[in-house]
């Protein structure tokens, strides 16, 4: 089985689906001849031509708006927003048009657009190349939100997303784009949306995380293990729809919860997880829910390592929660 990084896995998924389904088109800034700023669309222009792999103007509302129109006609557009930080100019298109289309047309018009975008910090990107905007989209009914952490899931989840009938925000963890390597099957397979994965079994407490932070939490677990703790790590993979059953099952088993994400703490996705646990597993808890998150500041340039939850910070939270 070939070993790939996440970029190669995304590229492989796009090629596979474009060969299989002529309705799939790719559009975005620099995605054509240049092959994408992170090379995720490399080789697509050469293989599929300019009618299926379109360089666009720097106009995010235009990119997403056009993609919605394409989907209404019956295509399967996969627009790329070059950095998740640039998604905000398209926010109106996503929230007011894309997410509501099926609903406000009484089911007449599905809009299956899959928006791929690299998110997150840890690359010294500063304010405008580091943000994690997932909470804005999870708050919007009608969208699905997917965040893989590794090449196998990236390919399988992307294929599921493109084949689904709903719009998907597909957040790719750019910090581990190349660092996260693993075996990826050649050819077709899917990973269904809405299924979390236990990436480390443990008995003592539950760590809930997703995306690039999964790797941080796995490192923290090694430290914790050396110190005598036994955390279970649940990687959500899909934030919306959430695999609530897997989350709650783990929480009921361990009675202790650490939630880790890069985005700012206030109203971050962890707040929703904490509320879910409070609503449905409160009596199982033996310690307060512990959130390890980005600070409630703009994403900092020089101080990004202070801002981002590190393995040390997560390990400290594990210790605090396990010994409460």
């Amino acid at each position, binding site marked *: 089985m070939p070993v790939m990084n996440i970029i190669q896995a995304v590229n492989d998924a796009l090629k596979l689906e474009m060969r299989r389904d002529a309705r799939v*088109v790719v559009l975005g800034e620099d995605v054509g001849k240049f092959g994408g700023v992170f090379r995720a669309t490399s080789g697509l222009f050469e293989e599929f031509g300019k*009618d299926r792999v*379109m360089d*666009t*103007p720097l*106009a995010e*509302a*235009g*990119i*997403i*708006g*056009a*993609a*919605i*129109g*394409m*989907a*209404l*006609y*019956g*295509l399967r*557009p996969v627009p790329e927003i070059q950095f998740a930080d640039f998604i905000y*100019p398209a926010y*109106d*298109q996503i929230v*007011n*048009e894309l997410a509501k289309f*099926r*609903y*406000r*047309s*009484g*089911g*007449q*018009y*599905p809009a299956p657009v899959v928006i791929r975008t690299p998110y997150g910090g840890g690359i010294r990107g500063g304010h405008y190349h580091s943000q994690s905007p997932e909470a804005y989209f999870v708050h919007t*009914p*009608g969208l*699905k939100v997917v965040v893989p952490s590794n090449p196998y899931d990236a390919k399988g989840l992307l294929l599921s997303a493109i084949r*689904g*009938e*709903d719009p998907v925000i597909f957040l790719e963890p750019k910090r581990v784009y190349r660092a996260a390597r693993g075996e990826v099957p050649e050819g077709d397979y899917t990973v269904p949306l*809405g299924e979390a994965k236990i990436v480390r079994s443990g008995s003592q407490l539950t760590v809930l995380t997703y995306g690039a932070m999964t790797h941080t939490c796995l490192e923290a677990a090694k430290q914790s293990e050396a110190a005598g703790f036994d955390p279970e790590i649940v990687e959500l993979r899909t934030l919306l*729809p*959430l*695999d*609530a*059953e897997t989350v709650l099952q783990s929480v009921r088993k361990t009675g202790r919860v650490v939630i880790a994400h890069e985005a700012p703490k206030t109203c971050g996705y962890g707040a929703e997880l904490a509320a879910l646990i409070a609503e449905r597993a409160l009596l199982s808890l033996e310690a307060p829910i512990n959130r390890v998150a980005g600070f409630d500041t703009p994403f900092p340039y020089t101080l990004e390592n202070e801002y981002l939850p590190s393995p040390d910070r997560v390990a400290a939270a594990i210790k605090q929660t396990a010994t409460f």
Partner: protein
Amino acid sequence: MTAQREESTQVLLRELYRQMLLIRRVEEQAAKAYAQGKIGGFLHLGIGQEPVCVGAISALKPTDYVVGTYREHGHYIAKGGSAKEVMAELYGKATGASKGFGGSMHLFAAERRMMGGYGIVGGHVPLAAGIAFAAKYRGKDDVTLCFFGDGSVPQGAFHEGISIAGLWKLPIVFICENNQYSMGTPLYRTLAVADVTERASGYAVARDRFSGEDVLAVRQHIAAAVERARQTGQPTLVEVITYRFRGHSMSDPGNYRTKDEIEEWKKRDGVALARERLKTEFAVSEDDLVSLEAHIRAEVQEAVRFADESPFPDAEEVWRYVYADPSSDPRKF
């Protein structure tokens, strides 16, 4: 004009007059129902602007696409929709155009390629470009008509959409229904360059600008733009000067316009003009027109009865169209 052509023009104008009058009567009735509390939300009437949507859409073939605005009752009917579907949707009934899920600004008819109303001013312009792209990509000769008001012109999305259409040579006609007021503010206070079509030159699209009270003239102008789009793939930015006789929405008393101004524009009412032409130029009898108008009245009354008697969507339906498979959303507990 040959006798045959004259007859076909008479038939055409009679049909366009019928559509315009039906739209007007539906909207007048909607205003009454709104006052009675039977229609909720916001209601934007296009009374006075009927020749624009009716003339423009009459230039299309059935597989062409129409993307409307939030003032789109007329567009929906001109694209073949019924008074019943409109009225029931305004009433929020399950039998409405969008099954009661949309309301006034959300009239969709997938089978007739009526791509809805849009409540975010200008937001639909890039989306219309995407529809036009898809038609071209699929090798179909379908053209997309994208309507918008003068208030859309300063919006970023308008420029992003038209920019993409010009760049990719998409089969689309952008139609600015310039009713001269962005809600309550006159154009000269919102646009530095009053001629909307001057924007065309920056985006390599053709342009056309004319007054919109003559429904046949509107049809002719738009037909030329549609042909250009279909044959050459060049988009056109069209500006039609028009006027709404009522306020922006039902809650707008329209104090920013003088009575004299409104009366002056009412003299150019395209619905009355079409009626007059049918009589004077095409020898249609008063009896014939009165009978046509009685039919329309009956149709509107039937639409009201239908809307009144139709059921609301079931409460359980509130979850139904959020996702393709409603059971895939575990939050429904």
